[in-house]
């Protein structure tokens, strides 16, 4: 069975872009194929993800995958796929591309995800409710208000202060100060986070990511083609995904999430343990997510994630580097999905391209994606 590697990646992000959805995606695409050193004619697979409302209308969303392939001139496709579980989609796309090559459906797969986060209309009601428009009739600000209630419940159950959760934002900002591409780079302290305006109590502005525009692109190829890459081809060591689509009111405990399942599966398949991981890139649309992931992956016991954050500073020189680019709290979130921004940083670190925040001797990185309201978790373990 042939092996498959990530051989190129591209990231094009703007706070608010004048470029169109299609112009943005082609920017990320070009960078990725240049790094992989392949021609667009060689691309025989396409896997795509976007989010509702982040594409100008027209063009319409119907046959969107066709439109993307058409715009990029990809005429030799043998495998096409759309992955649609929000921010967790990126890891899922990488795995599907990997499988397509392993199973010999394709030799060079383009993975593409993003959109224009800044054009989506404000969501006031029922974004995440199902089946009919008037169901529940609750005025809310999803997903933020749901994550706020999750954060509050976490504090209540484990007796955790807002300050402890705020420390996540402080740690990430400290990493962002070493990243020239971060939107927010000046150091902050816990008090700055607490004093920043409340978005949805208890979540403050500095605990929430900012919607931006942009795309992330990745090229996976067979071993033969991977030799042309400008980077050391990156291996897919293990992958796990777990889905629980229940709305939060249907869960026995609203803190329940599928992270333990997906991460356990990924580690098992990679046949390595947590202590082998040199970098953790964790989905961070909100600070509370990081605490739940730290616990879910097993870096800390349930209810003790905040303590882990107190004892570990996330930096690239620490024992457990986390979100070395500052995460999407500081990079912004393209198309309401943080999954690309964290995945790309893992690839940058594994390729030795992370400059001042480079982790020395890095071998393995774990990327955890989340989607919906703790509904979807994907864990990808990469290695060089």
């Amino acid at each position, binding site marked *: 069975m042939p092996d498959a590697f990530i051989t190129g990646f591209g990231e094009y992000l703007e706070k608010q872009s004048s470029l169109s959805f299609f112009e943005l995606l082609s920017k990320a695409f070009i960078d990725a194929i240049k790094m992989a050193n392949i021609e667009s004619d060689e691309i025989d697979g396409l896997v795509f993800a976007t989010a509702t409302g982040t594409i100008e209308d027209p063009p319409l969303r119907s046959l969107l995958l066709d439109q993307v392939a058409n715009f990029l001139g990809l005429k030799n496709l043998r495998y096409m796929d759309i992955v649609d579980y929000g921010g967790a989609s990126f890891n899922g796309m990488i795995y599907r591309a990997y499988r397509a090559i392993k199973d010999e459906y394709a030799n060079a797969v383009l993975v593409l995800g993003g959109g224009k986060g800044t054009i989506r209309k*404000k969501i*006031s009601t029922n974004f995440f409710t*199902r*089946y*009919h428009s*008037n*169901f*529940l*009739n*609750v*005025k*809310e*600000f999803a997903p*933020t*208000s749901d994550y*706020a*209630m*999750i954060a*509050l*419940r976490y504090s*209540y159950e484990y007796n955790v202060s807002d300050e402890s959760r705020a420390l996540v934002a402080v740690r990430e900002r400290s990493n962002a100060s070493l990243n020239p591409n971060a939107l927010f780079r000046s150091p902050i302290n816990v008090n700055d986070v607490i004093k920043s*305006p*409340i*978005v*949805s*109590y*208890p*979540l403050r*502005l500095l605990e929430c990511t900012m919607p931006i525009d942009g795309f992330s692109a990745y090229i996976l190829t067979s071993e033969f083609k991977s030799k042309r890459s400008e980077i050391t081809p990156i291996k897919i060591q293990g992958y796990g995904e777990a889905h629980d689509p229940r*709305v*939060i*009111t*249907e*869960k026995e405990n*609203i803190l329940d999430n599928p992270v333990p399942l997906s991460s356990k599966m990924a580690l098992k398949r990679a046949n390595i343990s947590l202590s082998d991981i040199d970098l953790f890139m964790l989905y961070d649309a909100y600070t509370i997510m990081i605490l739940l992931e730290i616990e879910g992956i097993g870096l800390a016991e349930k209810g003790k994630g905040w303590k882990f954050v107190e004892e570990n500073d996330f930096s690239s020189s620490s024992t457990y580097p986390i979100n070395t680019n500052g995460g999407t709290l500081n990079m912004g979130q393209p198309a309401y999905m943080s999954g690309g921004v964290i995945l790309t940083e893992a690839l940058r670190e594994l390729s030795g391209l992370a400059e001042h925040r480079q982790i020395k001797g890095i071998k393995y990185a774990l990327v955890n994606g989340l989607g919906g309201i703790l509904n979807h978790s994907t864990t990808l373990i990469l290695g060089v």
Partner: protein
Amino acid sequence: MEKISILLEKYNEVYNEGFFPVIKCKKCGYTTQVLRNRCVRCVSDSLEIIRISSGKIYSYTIINRGLDEVVAVVIVDADGVKVKGNYVGDQKYLKIGNLVRSTIIENKTVFTPLSQ
């Protein structure tokens, strides 16, 4: 089996009377605020709609940004079933464990402090 549109009519009727509607499976007793025409636990299609009039605050949030007004949302635990709704009343009363009841304010069913 009743069509979702018919269940929705009943659901809305309860809501318009000032209660939070919840679907209860007549066979296994599973309750949920999410409207479906089949029980997701035992797949029975024998369902009834019950009225939730009070419960304990399980979690809450006060949304200060992003909407045209400040809005409070609560998840209320009503004998094991969780119900999400807007909350109208003293913000200081918002505390996990406090009791709330349903009422109609400006044509909308909301939760409000039980004591008021």
